[in-house]
């Protein structure tokens, strides 16, 4: 693997995306809403609304005993805020990289085919694996950068707004570190690879985006549901889940490379 060629493709794709307002705007707005506005509203309303806290505590009582143990020792208001910020909003951190990366990766091959720029690259000595890896990284790196930045902003927002309730910095928890540094990257890589595969098979960006939405969305929803559940579990299980995703990543990348045929790509470039 020639990494110079891989990163040349990655840099080129990121530069192109950075010059497109249509893609940049949702990449800024979505994280801002998910990690700034929604958590702020949730914390402030729980701090000042007793009814909200009471109804949330009723819901918490129905949760598994392991979770109840983790919340033991907190006051009612603390329990409600902790539950929302640590468990429920965790799924947002899967939505962010997946949304961001889908915007870029749908554009990867399909956008190049649409703009008739891909054929030039196919004549160079770049291998299929290098080209695909470059394309996947072009979505993965910005997605991770935005996720980690969002994680930092979220930590500041949560701790700042909840400080009067907890009188200490309680976020991020250990499981959150594992979520952000292990599970989010492996899940995102899988989704990106899948969208890149779709992008290579279709004719244009809109088609790639529609199919990606139809195929990726159910996977995202299932994964998000599972992640909310996984956050209740031990760090070991989260690590293991991430490992399973890592294996799936490697298998999918291998499949994409095997099923990648330059001559079939050319059929669409007419």
């Amino acid at each position, binding site marked *: 693997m*020639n990494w*110079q*060629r891989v990163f*040349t*493709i990655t840099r*080129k794709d990121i*530069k*192109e995306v950075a*010059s*497109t307002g249509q893609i940049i705007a949702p990449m800024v707005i979505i994280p801002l809403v998910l990690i700034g506005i929604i958590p702020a509203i949730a914390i402030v309303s729980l701090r000042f609304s007793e009814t909200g806290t009471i109804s949330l505590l009723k819901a918490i009582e129905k949760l598994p005993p392991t979770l109840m143990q983790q919340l033991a020792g907190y006051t009612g208001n603390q329990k409600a805020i902790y539950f929302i910020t640590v468990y429920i909003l965790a799924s947002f951190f899967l939505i962010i990289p997946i949304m961001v990366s889908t915007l870029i990766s749908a554009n990867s091959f399909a956008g190049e085919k649409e*703009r*008739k*720029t*891909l*054929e*030039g*690259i*196919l*004549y*160079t*000595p*770049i*291998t299929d694996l290098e080209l695909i890896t470059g394309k996947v990284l072009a979505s993965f790196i910005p997605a991770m950068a935005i996720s980690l930045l969002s994680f930092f902003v979220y930590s500041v927002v949560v701790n700042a707004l909840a400080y009067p309730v907890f009188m200490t910095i309680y976020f991020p928890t250990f499981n959150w570190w594992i979520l952000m540094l292990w599970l989010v990257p492996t899940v995102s890589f899988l989704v990106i690879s899948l969208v890149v595969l779709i992008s290579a098979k279709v004719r244009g960006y809109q088609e790639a985006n529609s199919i990606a939405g139809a195929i990726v969305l159910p996977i995202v929803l299932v994964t998000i549901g599972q992640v909310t559940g996984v956050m209740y579990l031990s760090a070991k299980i989260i690590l293991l889940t991430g490992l399973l995703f890592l294996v799936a990543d490697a298998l999918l990348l291998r499949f994409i490379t095997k099923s990648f045929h*330059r*001559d079939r790509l*050319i059929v669409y*470039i007419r």
Partner: protein
Amino acid sequence: MKNIAIEACHISKSFGNIAALDDISFSIQKGDVFGLLGPNGAGKTTAVRLLNGLIKPTEIETISILGLDLQKNIQDIRQRVGVLTDTNLYERLSAIDNLLIFGMLYGLSHKESSQRAEHLLEQFELSDRASSKVETFSKGMKQKLSIARALISDPEIVYLDEPTAGLDPEASHELLQYIIKVSSDSSKTFFITSHRLEEMESICDTVAILDRGRIKAFGSPHDLVNQVFKDHWVTVTLGNGTRLNISLLKLELSFVQDIEQSNNEVKIKVDDRASIPKLIRYLGKLDTDIYSIAEDVPNLQDAYLAIVKEK
């Protein structure tokens, strides 16, 4: 074999039931400028894609590039060739970025790519627009930049698919001069497809005429013309109302084979080129208003049209 840059033997390519290339064979010497000529849909771009391993042939005996088997050594071959087809540049990136990307994809370091890119931009008179986004370029400037991109790795073989398309006559002329200069200064081989026959005749060492997937003629432009046009014709322009006595001409000049007279123009077919001076001497002695006597010299375009129209 050492001096052969490209050799293709019995290559066919079909898309469904349509034969894009039908059993073509040819070889091109290193350092030659080769022109593949043909009407739209003749299979020229398919040939370029096939010779670069981008599409696979339906049937093949061999394709050898720089002495290497194409199918077994595709990566090595790609490293040594540069290609321009009907592809677009990255419009949102600058001219220099477009060249740097390709330099680095060909394995040049950032420094080498920069030096080479700057040199090419200067050569194609685009230095002052190096940092401008390509979307602000004219069609001609884009075409020049695309050609520079094909040359970024200093390749041994350069494929140029319709390189002068979109260029004004001056820019076309400059490009052709550049090709002539590069091919004579170095051992680069140029494989050019074009419709512009006059241009091709002036720069190509060898041409092939491709029509409906088959190579109809192959050779130097001069040889090709001679293959098609074996007859020698002379056109005589007369004064208004003046006519030549055709019967007398035929009777007195045994080398005259045919005469066609229309208005004030007479076309005379002679048996050999060496007979033309004799004809001119004879016509000079006549008491007739003759304005001009000219040998009809067919060019590549005439040969091309004759070959392509031949069913």
